[in-house]
């Protein structure tokens, strides 16, 4: 029976049910936010421990491409997890539909950055597979289900019981259960192989056959099934599938670099930039990007060497010349990043139990139409059978309409006007298809420190952001003096980059950047900009 409330949350619907627990669609009664609530049934201490462990692992990770834990509590004696409720569909279903390479590269970029960040944070996922990746309506992906993740520390050489899904298990796990970041890399490569070709290279009808394939079968060249795949990208994926862990690349740098190369440069970079702006402070600096994925320092180094070699005067001239050229290439919006309407679904997740047979893994769910109109309900989920494992809440990205300013809402400060007409560099983006629900603009709270007598780029992340929004700097509720907006660059609906100039004698205090719509009404809350010494 579906409970009316779990903790403080009002239960709206049952999203999925498995042998070990249930996942509900809930709503925070105070702020109206939709959430996914995962509860565990029974008193199996092992399952409860894993449940608590999952909470701790996810709670310690803050990355835009990793599902966020919002709360953990007990309802009576039963623990429950509250996670962001994600729209979209599982990658396992997503890859069965035709998608462009650009869309696939967005997913690659997100998954690789998420895993890289988790590894940097000392966490191994240990169950990377398509059903544990949720593709959002905007084309970005989020990694979820850290139920069997473990801290990397002390675990790199540790042995333990075998967990995971056979087709995605690295061979060394089957040999000696020695997990390492390269095991996650391997699983990620299998996932990518499947995404690019549509087939898992080790899939078999039985678990035993699948395990045999993992141990003995060298997967055919990915380009045999996908000839148009760029060679470098194909080689990068294949390199990660090496049976010997030591012969796989160290980290995700090669994959990301190949993806950037395949995309012709800007798209993955743009994606990375959006990823670099976190939902929480600690995610503001996700794992340092691999060297190959950070071209900017190389360009700066080249300029530096050139400048010092030819003298200050020449530097001045060159800078002037550079300045007269295009300021910065506007990132190309990946096609997949444009919002598309999608049925809201929740995907039952993987098993938390090491003994759950892989064949019992639930397949997702309700019929969905990727580009079809939004369904009237928040989503539907086919209930897995009793034998199915614990479902994973399909995440979130809740637009939280109740938190967003209604277009009809009168602005508290309608007379606010920008000090300087910003130069809007509008990046071509696809308009949301008709029928898509418009998302009210909303920015994530953030704080940036800048110094007087300098300029700075402020990345403002949110959702529902639009090219027509205009950034203004406020002191309190009035236009600020001493800080000017030089440029405003719309990257995508989740990111607008604002360049500001802080004049020399600007008072050392906190200001805020907000967005106005065309009517001059303030439509978002502020991002703090603190002017410091």
């Amino acid at each position, binding site marked *: 029976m579906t409970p009316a409330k779990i903790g403080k949350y009002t239960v709206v619907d049952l999203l999925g049910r498995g042998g070990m627990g249930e996942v509900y669609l809930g709503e925070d009664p105070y702020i109206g936010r939709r959430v996914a609530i995962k509860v565990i049934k029974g008193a199996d201490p092992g399952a409860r421990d894993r449940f608590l462990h999952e909470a701790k692992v996810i709670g310690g990770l803050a990355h835009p491409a990793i599902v966020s834990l919002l709360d953990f509590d007990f309802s009576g004696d039963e623990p429950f997890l509250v996670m962001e409720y994600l729209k979209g569909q599982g990658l396992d279903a997503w890859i069965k539909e035709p998608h462009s390479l650009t869309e696939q590269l967005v997913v690659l970029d997100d998954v690789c950055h998420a895993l890289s960040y988790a590894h940097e944070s000392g966490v191994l996922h240990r169950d990377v597979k398509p059903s544990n990746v949720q593709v959002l309506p905007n084309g970005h992906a989020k990694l979820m289900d850290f139920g069997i993740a473990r801290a990397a520390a002390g675990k790199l050489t540790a042995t333990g019981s075998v967990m995971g899904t056979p087709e995605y298990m690295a061979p060394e796990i089957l040999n000696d259960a020695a997990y390492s970041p390269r095991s996650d890399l391997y699983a990620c490569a299998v996932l990518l192989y499947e995404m690019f070709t549509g087939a898992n290279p080790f899939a078999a009808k039985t678990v035993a056959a699948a395990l045999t394939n993992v141990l003995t079968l060298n997967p055919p060249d990915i380009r045999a099934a996908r000839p148009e795949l760029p060679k470098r990208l194909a080689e990068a994926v294949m390199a990660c599938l090496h049976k010997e862990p030591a012969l796989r690349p160290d980290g995700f740098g090669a994959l990301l670099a190949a993806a950037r190369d395949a995309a012709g440069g800007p798209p993955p970079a743009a994606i990375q930039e959006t990823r670099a702006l976190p939902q929480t402070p600690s995610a503001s*600096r996700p794992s*340092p990007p691999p060297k190959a994925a950070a071209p900017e320092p190389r360009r700066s180094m080249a300029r530096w060497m050139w400048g010092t070699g030819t003298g*200050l005067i020449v530097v001045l001239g060159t800078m002037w010349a550079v300045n007269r050229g295009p300021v910065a290439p506007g990132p190309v919006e990946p096609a997949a990043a444009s919002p598309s309407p999608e049925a809201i679904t929740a995907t039952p997740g993987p098993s938390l139990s090491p003994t759950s047979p892989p064949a019992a893994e639930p397949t997702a769910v309700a019929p969905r139409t990727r580009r079809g109109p939004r369904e009237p309900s928040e989503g539907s989920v086919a209930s897995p059978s009793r034998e199915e494992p614990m479902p994973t809440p399909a995440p979130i990205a809740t637009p939280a309409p109740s938190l*967003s300013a209604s277009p009809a809402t009168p602005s508290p400060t309608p007379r606010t006007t920008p000090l300087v007409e910003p130069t809007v560099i509008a990046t071509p983006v696809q308009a949301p298809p008709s029928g898509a629900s418009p998302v009210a603009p909303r920015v994530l709270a953030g704080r940036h420190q800048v110094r007087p007598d300098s300029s700075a780029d402020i990345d403002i992340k949110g959702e529902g952001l639009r090219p027509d929004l205009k950034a203004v700097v406020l002191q309190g509720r009035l236009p600020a003096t001493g800080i000017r907006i030089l440029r405003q660059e719309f990257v995508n609906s989740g990111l607008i980059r604002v360049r500001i100039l802080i004049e020399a004698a600007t008072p050392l205090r906190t200001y805020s950047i907000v967005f106005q719509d065309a009517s001059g009404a303030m439509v978002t809350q502020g991002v703090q900009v603190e002017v410091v010494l």
Partner: protein
Amino acid sequence: MKRSKPIVILSCALLFAALTARAQPKGRDARPPETSATPDARVAALQTELDRLRAEMAALRDEIQRLRAEAVKADDGLSARLLALEARQVKLESEFTRLSEELKRTGDALDQISEGEGKRPSITVYGTLQGVSYTGQDSILDAEAFEIVLSGRPHPRLSFFAEIEFERAAAVGGPRGGEVVLEQAYASYSFAQIFSVRTGVLLVPFGNVNVDHFAPLRDVVRKPLVSYAIAPSDWTDNGIQFTGRRLAGTSWLFEYEAALIAGLDSHLTSVGMREARQPFGVDNNGNKAAVGRFAIKRSTSFETGISAYTGKYDDANRQRLNGWAADLRAEFGPIRLTGEYDHFTANTTIAPKTQLAGYYVRASWDIRGGVLRNLARGFDDPRFTLVAQYDWARIDGPNAINARFERNREIGITAGFAYRPSRQWVLKVNYEKNQITNDALDRGDRRGWLGSVGFVF
């Protein structure tokens, strides 16, 4: 109860003003703990209530429409319900109007508060505690400085900036020494972005160390040798300064600072120019020195500047001191390179010209993430910086005591780290090795460990 709402709002506003709390515009999804006590939170709450009312009214309208359609063939009971609903609609519209007016009044009050706060000075403080242990010397703990920075912009074109230093924070003068120095205090009038005038106590625009002299922001404990012995940082003077900046596109910023100041006096010696800084309100020769710096910046990642100084320094107003400097700061990802070269030449009547030159080059490598995240748990952006610096300075000039012409050299190598859990606090540990030829310019022939804790709030 309803009448009390404006009073509550006004009370909040007054309390807000009294505590000089910062009113930041918050959306309705602002974090309650940060905003619940502010008028903006009240606005957000009103907004939420308005939204609720609006939704309720919309639902009522739909219901009324539906009932009207049915009422045609309905009985009296349904008509009565319709009337009740219409009455409810009228009441809601009245409440909606009242709340809208209340919201407007609250907004106006907040605007007034913001305007007042915008004209109010801001206060920032910073300071350092140093621990120094050189070979052959007793170790020292030295609360070197505590500084108060005041800034304000009461008008878009008028601003002021002041920095008061309590050095060796003890009693001023007397057996415990100590001093209070007005390092900067100027008012600025901006005619245009390209031209502003500052008057008062100015930071002399010469080299990147002097114009950005805030100790906690440096990666090493001590200021570079060149900025101690050659350009006497912190180098401040009374005068008038012209500043301006011009944007080239939106990435590059060209800036100039040019000043007329009292200038340095004749206390140029073979160990540096620190004693040549004149007291405020004094000029030994009436000649005003001209000094300026031209800089090019790109965001926070690149800055280069050239500086120049000229002025007569002797009491007879005959001999000229000329100097120039070039500085650079560039970031390449986590690597940051900083350097400055200074050169001064002082004409003399009979002796050889006094020549002063020196430079420093510093490389810093910022490390973020990893173990640091655990070490600095709870901080947003912890940073661990490995740093190495090379100093060199040369002065060929007269000995202050016997007037003999000397050639003094000093070099220094510094290595260490700086740990910043946040930008507001820093722990620095350095190892220095210095070597001199003839007289010491600053540190002498010493090696030693230095540590410091700095803060900026």
